[in-house]
């Protein structure tokens, strides 16, 4: 199975830039399945948490209108090579996922 969260990081002058893609359908609940002609139930990420080592640096509260397989990029200061970035999410059905990388 492909990894559910892809994370890329770079550090320049102590400022880290994080780019990530979270694999998720992000169904709005408005879409009609062309095969069954039924509405596809809403299924979307509600919250994303980004931790630098053990410190929360970014919290994202999302609606269903963030695109499918969401892309997110942000940057913060005080980062060093060897530090850990952890991205975790939770969706409206209670599913969760998280992934971490060591910055180089």
């Amino acid at each position, binding site marked *: 199975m492909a990894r559910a969260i892809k994370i890329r990081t770079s550090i320049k002058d102590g400022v880290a830039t994080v780019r990530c893609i979270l694999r998720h359908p992000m169904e709005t609940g408005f879409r009609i399945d062309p095969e069954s002609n039924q509405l596809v139930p809403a299924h979307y990420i509600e919250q994303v948490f980004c931790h630098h080592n053990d410190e*929360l640096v970014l*919290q994202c509260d999302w609606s269903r209108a963030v*695109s499918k397989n969401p892309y997110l990029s942000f940057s913060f200061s005080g980062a060093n090579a060897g530090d850990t970035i952890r991205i975790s999410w939770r969706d409206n059905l209670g599913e969760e996922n998280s992934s971490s990388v060591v910055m180089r």
Partner: protein
Amino acid sequence: MQRRGFLKTLAVCGALVLTGASSLLRTAFAATKRNKPAFSKADQVEALDSLFPGRTIEPSSAIDIGVHDLVENGAVVPLKINSTLPAIDSISILVEKNPNPLIAHFKLSPRCQAFIATRIKVQNPSMITAVVDSEGRLYSAQRFVEVIEGGCG
């Protein structure tokens, strides 16, 4: 002499309290619950009211919304928010003509740069609004986006 000593002590205490308070503020960033009512509002003014109760928002030129003026596919609209405002607590994104205008609310730690990039869905040609909470005050900027094919279906 005694008075001077007292004043000095007072000044040192004051400084300690100040640094203590600011370091507390800097570490006071903890996860919070998602504001569900704000996300379910169908009207942008109501959504903003629910997200920032009783607060006024003023237009600012210090917020930059990076988005194409004309988008072919509304399901994937790349969006970048940059700002030169200091001490940003949060960045919110709203699309006025979407069924629920509030798209995303980002809470930033004091260490974060004033920058967020993501991709959103835009149903109809619409005004996109970014609201930034800086030093306890709210600022906003707007950009109009033309969409050829809506992205919420």
